[in-house]
């Protein structure tokens, strides 16, 4: 039984193994799309007139898969939705990135994608529309520096694959006082809201389409170009604890390979509270098995 | 061996000179203006050769050394064959076998505007004109003649390109068409574009013709006129049977 990361990190004792295996089999039974998953060089039996999309190649008349993934049809188009792969940027995607380099009038961000994202200074302001002067370029560094986490939107993709980002509305910009997590991009479903504000805990949750997730203290919307001192105040203890708890919930879901939606994350969060499992023990094997079983029930309920 | 000091300029014309040979001695020349071409250089009143080659003289007062090299020194108004190396936003980097890469502005095409910038992939062969070669700057090229018309300039599709020396390309471009091309032209139909930087492009319908023309030209560099004709006859005879 080929087990992804889980087996390597978590020593499951016998009962946990049995429970986990049963849960996985039930999950497999439930999922409808597993049987048309293909691997590299599998031939796809399709009638000829379909359009060939990503991940497929025509080799002497026969359609062959070039990646491992699931064959999906969108009316006339057949393509392979890849699973584990780097993030393929699309315009209007909300992404979270980490700054690698501050260069002349632009920031270079790591997005877990083929090319690094470039956030130009000109596409940085939001309310005050004015030409960026030389002075702005000089104080770029006191707005965003290396290793800062930034949230932005994919602006446009250049011919040679260059990726330009835009951070033109108040939601985007530098993120502070929180935790940055990395998961596989295929676990993040494309939806129209990626910004989630959890009032009960006073936490912002941004699920980046590129698999970078930000969990941080809630920030009122105002222009972050003007920095004032009272803004830097101390975050309370329980907010910080809930940030960690949500972070670990996301890590557990990522280890198990479940999709990241707000609902699933909150459910795991509440499960960990209900079982009053300490934040650290959430990464233990027992909690993983609990989450797996919980996920099974949820899917049964929903199916 | 001491540098050959020659008094009368005519003695060395059409002779082979080697770097260091003193070609002209201006001290005893009475107020004559002399134009020095490539390969000659003057220190105070002695003109000596910089490059090995044949000293040539043309009517009024133009002296230069005719030599054949693999490297090309860009000179304005030369027609050359360039290979696209890289395309940046405002100009293409083109290799013309010169000391540096040359620049071809994206607008230097007939009716070239920001809208219709052509897309050349790396390795495209272009027939170009050298516009500017000021020192310290990369030479500037253009795909139009002086009046802005395309006139044969631009990308060369298909066919085959061979690298030869600048001497051979000058010979191929000589005014009475050189014997090789003349002889080949009788039997075979082909088109060639010769760049002064020692690159020749040959194209024709059948690959066989292209190969014969290419190899004939390659071998003709060191042959005299009659030998070239004999060589071409032999080649054509071989393929006709």
């Amino acid at each position: 039984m080929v087990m992804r990361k889980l087996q390597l990190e978590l020593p499951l004792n016998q009962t946990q193994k049995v429970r986990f295996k049963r849960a996985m089999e039930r999950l497999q039974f439930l999922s409808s799309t597993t049987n048309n998953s293909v691997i590299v060089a599998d031939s796809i039996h399709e009638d000829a007139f379909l359009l060939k999309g990503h991940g497929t190649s025509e080799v002497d008349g026969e359609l062959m898969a070039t990646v491992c993934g699931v064959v999906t049809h969108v009316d006339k188009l057949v393509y392979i939705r890849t699973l584990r792969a780097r993030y393929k940027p699309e315009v209007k995607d909300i992404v979270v990135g980490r700054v690698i380099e501050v260069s002349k009038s632009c920031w270079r961000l790591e997005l877990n994608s083929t090319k690094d994202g470039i956030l130009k200074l000109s596409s940085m302001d939001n309310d005050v529309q004015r030409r960026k002067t030389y002075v702005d370029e000089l104080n770029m560094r006191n707005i965003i520096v290396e290793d800062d986490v930034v949230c932005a939107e994919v602006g446009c993709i250049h011919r040679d694959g260059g990726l330009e980002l835009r951070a033109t509305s108040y939601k985007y910009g530098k993120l502070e006082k929180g935790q940055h997590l990395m998961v596989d991009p295929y676990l993040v479903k494309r939806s129209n809201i990626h910004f989630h504000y959890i009032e009960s805990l006073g936490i912002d949750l941004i699920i980046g389409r590129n698999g970078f997730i930000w969990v941080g203290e809630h920030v009122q919307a105002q222009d972050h170009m003007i920095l004032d001192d009272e803004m830097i105040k101390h975050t309370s203890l329980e907010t910080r604890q809930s940030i960690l708890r949500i972070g670990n919930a996301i890590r557990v879901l990522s280890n198990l390979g479940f999709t990241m939606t707000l609902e699933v994350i909150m459910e795991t969060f509440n499960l960990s509270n209900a079982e009053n499992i300490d934040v650290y023990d959430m990464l233990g094997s027992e909690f993983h098995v609990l989450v797996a079983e919980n996920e099974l029930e949820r899917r049964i309920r929903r199916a | 061996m001491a540098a050959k000091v020659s008094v009368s300029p005519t003695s060395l014309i059409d002779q082979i000179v080697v770097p260091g040979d003193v070609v002209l001695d201006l001290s005893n020349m009475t107020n004559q203006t002399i134009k020095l071409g490539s390969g000659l250089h003057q220190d105070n009143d002695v003109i000596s050769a910089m490059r090995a080659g044949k000293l040539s003289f043309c009517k009024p007062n133009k002296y230069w050394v005719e030599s054949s090299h693999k490297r090309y020194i860009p000179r304005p108004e030369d027609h050359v064959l360039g290979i696209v190396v890289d395309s940046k936003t405002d100009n293409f980097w083109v290799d013309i076998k010169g000391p540096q890469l040359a620049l071809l502005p994206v607008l230097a095409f007939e009716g070239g505007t920001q809208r219709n910038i052509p897309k050349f992939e790396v390795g495209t062969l272009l027939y170009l004109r050298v516009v500017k070669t000021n020192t310290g700057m990369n030479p500037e090229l253009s795909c139009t003649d002086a009046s802005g018309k395309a006139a044969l300039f631009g990308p060369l599709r298909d066919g085959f390109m061979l690298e030869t020396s600048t001497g051979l390309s000058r010979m191929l471009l000589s005014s009475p068409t050189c014997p090789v091309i003349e002889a080949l032209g009788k039997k075979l139909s082909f088109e060639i574009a010769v760049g002064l930087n020692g690159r020749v492009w040959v194209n024709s319908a059948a690959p066989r013709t292209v190969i014969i023309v290419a190899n004939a030209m390659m071998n003709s560099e060191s042959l005299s006129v009659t030998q070239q004709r004999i060589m071409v006859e032999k080649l054509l005879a071989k393929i006709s049977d």
Partner: protein
Amino acid sequence: MEGRLANMWRLTVNESKFVETALQSELRVDGRGLYDYRKLTIKFGKEYGSSEVQLGQTHVMGFVTAQMVQPYKDRPNEGSLSIFTEFSPMADPSFEPGRPGESAVELGRIIDRGLRESRAVDTESLCILAGKMVWSVRIDLHILDNGGNLVDAANIAALAALMTFRRPDCTVGGENGQEVIIHPPEEREPLPLIIHHLPIAFTFGFFNKGNIVVMDPTYVEEAVMCGRMTVTVNANGDICAIQKPGEEGVNQSVILHCLRLASSRAAATTKIIREEVEAYNRERSLQKVKRHPTLAKSEVSGPTVAVKEEYRKSSDQEKAAEISREHVERLKLSPEELRSSKEQEATNFKGGPSNWDPYSEAMDVDSLKVSLASEGDSITKSSSKKKTNGSGNAQKDGGEISVEEVTGDLGKKDTKHKDGEMTLKDAVKPKKKRKNKT
């Protein structure tokens, strides 16, 4: 960076398209047939064991040298064979100076596998004293001009050099039977290496997805082809090595077709090489015979002619002869005593590369080269070397086994004689002289 970009050789789209279309109709750019080889010329240097091969425009030189080393622990009675390649930027602008690139290492390993793994050279015969002293043969290949298909040219150069190489004959003697005496060429004829068979390399280029096969690809064809394969076969049809390093996939049938093609060509190429070597050997032996009678007959005229030529050649080693003369006595010297002279000698020895071995190979090669000069003075100087792997110090200590120097019968006498005037006495009584042939 832009400077480096300027002088690189570039392939145009037109050339690659034309080469492919021409190959469709079985035509190659230089007019050859698909399986024709370019003109092959093999020349030999003045000394034994040096060859120069010209395959079309590709130009490779091979040098074979041997020296006595301690054998590997796991093979006490076998000599060793090692190959070093030198891709100098002179041959091709794309060769980087300094550490050998991937292609240089690959070429060396292809030829190395072809010769060593298939036991082409008999290594048992290289053993002098089991466990103590064996001959270590080293082949150096220098690429002088890259006209494409370096592997075949380098392989032929290596074979030709190996076949003409002669190593000094030596016997085990002395009191406790541990002494090894090297006999100079005058006393005992130098011995050739024992070569069982000649592994010949044939390189194939694959075009348009492996359907078209071409032999002996040129530089342009190498830039265009999508895959290559080198098959090393010998005359009696055995396959010695194959190297198809990935690249384009090819059907099994095409590979077997290539193998048959190669083995059918092996006999022809072997014949060419053997003929060249025989011609060289005949000419060398003629030359040797010619030299002896002239010496006896016309005492005066012979030497003056030879001396003039001799003088020119040895004048530049005047200084070396001076210093080394007072160190060496006629009798055999025990290794320790000689070490001092060895160090002293090595400092002023200017000929021969100081340390050939740019790679971190286990066996460090000593600076001196044992090669038998053809003309008069023969210098056999071998220095055994304690093989300390990774011996850090630059100066290799090594005891001489025994140094017997005999100047060639026409070698220079000591300086007090006026150069031109050579008496019979000089010619006959061999005077101890160590001269190094650069």
